[in-house]
């Protein structure tokens, strides 16, 4: 085996696993079931270190109120932004257009956030979470 053939073999040997790894990609996760808690949350940006553990909706004075526990699963201080969007039974946006609110989180901290519908016609919601970075 001359030097050139040996180098070629080395290159092919090194590149083959890389190329094969590119082909064997993870299948995309199935979308969350409609009306499930996961379907109510929209993550904007890389928020892999954030999870929402407890999401519940109740009514106060005929206005729907949502509570959610937002968890920082990382060992770093972080801050995210969030807001609620309210929908009527037809899926149309109702109530005020909420502004983004900053939520500072200490390492491993769980913080409860609350959203209140400003329209009696609001029966459904979406919680938007956005990375501040």
């Amino acid at each position: 085996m001359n030097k050139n053939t040996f180098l070629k073999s080395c290159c092919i040997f090194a590149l083959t696993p890389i190329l094969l790894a590119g082909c064997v990609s993870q299948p995309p996760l199935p979308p969350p079931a409609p009306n499930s808690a996961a379907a109510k949350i929209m993550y904007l940006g890389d928020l892999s270190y954030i999870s929402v553990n407890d999401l519940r909706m109740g009514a106060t004075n005929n206005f729907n109120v949502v509570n959610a526990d937002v968890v920082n699963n990382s060992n770093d201080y972080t801050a995210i932004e969030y807001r609620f969007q309210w929908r009527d039974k037809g899926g149309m946006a109702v109530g005020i257009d909420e502004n983004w609110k900053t939520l500072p989180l200490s390492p491993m901290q769980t913080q409860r956030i609350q959203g209140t519908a400003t329209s009696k016609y609001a029966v459904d919601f979406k919680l938007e979470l956005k990375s501040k970075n």
Partner: protein
Amino acid sequence: MNTKRTHILGLVIALTATLGVSGCASNKPAFSSGNVAYGDTKAEENLTNEIGLTDFQMMAEKMTTSLLTSPLIATSKQKPTITIAEIKNKTSEHIDTRSIALKIKTQLSKSQTVRFMTDKADDAGSLTELQRQSQSGLYKQSKAAKPGNREAAKYRLHGEITSIVKRAGDIKNIDYILNLTLEDVDAGEDVWSEEKEIRKTSERPTF
């Protein structure tokens, strides 16, 4: 032969030049100087540590949701009638507190749970229109607004905004506190009260 080639080459150059120039020439008028952009008014604005639109929005949202979920709204058989009074500015900044009040009014109006009566700030304009309709002789009296028909507001919304400013070296801290109260005008009783605190910290750059 050589002349024919030169002719064809000349035609190609002329055609390319025409296409190139026509591509550059646009009939669209220039609407942008290139250094102006629209932004998201709902995004957090922290250009300076002075009070801004984001603070107004946070204050109005807190006050609106608090009032909507208060027992006052729940126990009222009819939509409560409210008039907006002054929100006193006790900070060292110039703050258009009327703008905060109007934001709260707009959000509460959209909820369709309360009714707003003409407030003191709009009294002059409202009275002028009433006099124009009832006294100018220009309108059918059967359909013109008449004095003495107005419904007085049962509740008065008033409050104040204060600030605490602290400096330590290059760090400046401002705490804003907005406090609003709803007063039953007849009974002279405060039936609802809420406050919103906002802390803004800034650091002066070294260079």
